[in-house]
């Protein structure tokens, strides 16, 4: 399981001010976990390496976006627990 310096959890859609704030705070050793409305980000060009960007499966599924993401990037709640437990720090945006 990946261990990030800071794990950023983003639950806001791309139109939201805090979405932009979050993206501007992601450092080179950080990871991004998209949840809730945040999973809409996967329809947008994101300046973050795919290996550091995950989206919560149930939220993708609800929004009809499961097929838009490669399986490497899809996280379950179990994955979310691991990601948050392993990261040095977590910021919920």
């Amino acid at each position, binding site marked *: 399981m990946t261990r990030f310096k800071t794990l950023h959890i983003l*639950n806001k*859609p*791309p*139109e939201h001010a805090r979405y932009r704030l979050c993206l501007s705070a992601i450092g080179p050793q950080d990871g991004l976990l998209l949840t*809730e*409305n945040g999973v*809409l980000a996967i*329809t947008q060009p994101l300046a973050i390496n795919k290996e550091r960007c995950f989206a919560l*499966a*149930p*939220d993708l*599924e*609800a*929004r*009809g*976006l499961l*097929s838009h993401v490669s399986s490497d990037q899809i996280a379950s709640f179990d994955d979310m627990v691991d990601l948050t437990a392993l990261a040095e720090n977590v910021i919920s945006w």
Partner: protein
Amino acid sequence: MSTLIIIDQPPYGSWEGREALDMAFSLAAFDQPVSLLFCGAGVNWLRKGQDATTIQQKSVERNLAAAPVFGVEALLADNKACDHYGLTEEDLLDPVSITDFGPELTSRFDHVAFAG
């Protein structure tokens, strides 16, 4: 008296869109002309293939499909917002028409409202 209800929030993350839908259905139930407009992140309401079982909510697709039956005159989607979310006409639920958001559109209605 014609009403336009605007939904600019994505589904499932908040209750605003559901409460906007209730407003539209109530107007229709009382035979008041009403249309729904989806813009901004709100166009994500219209994507085919939604399944909200795992997050323990009701999928909004069925509600929207019922809108014409209940007497909602039109489901409109903003062109630019659809583009922004990579939604083509094929990806959208059936009764939706793509339109351009702006003063020409809103001025066609006597009453324009958001749910929150």
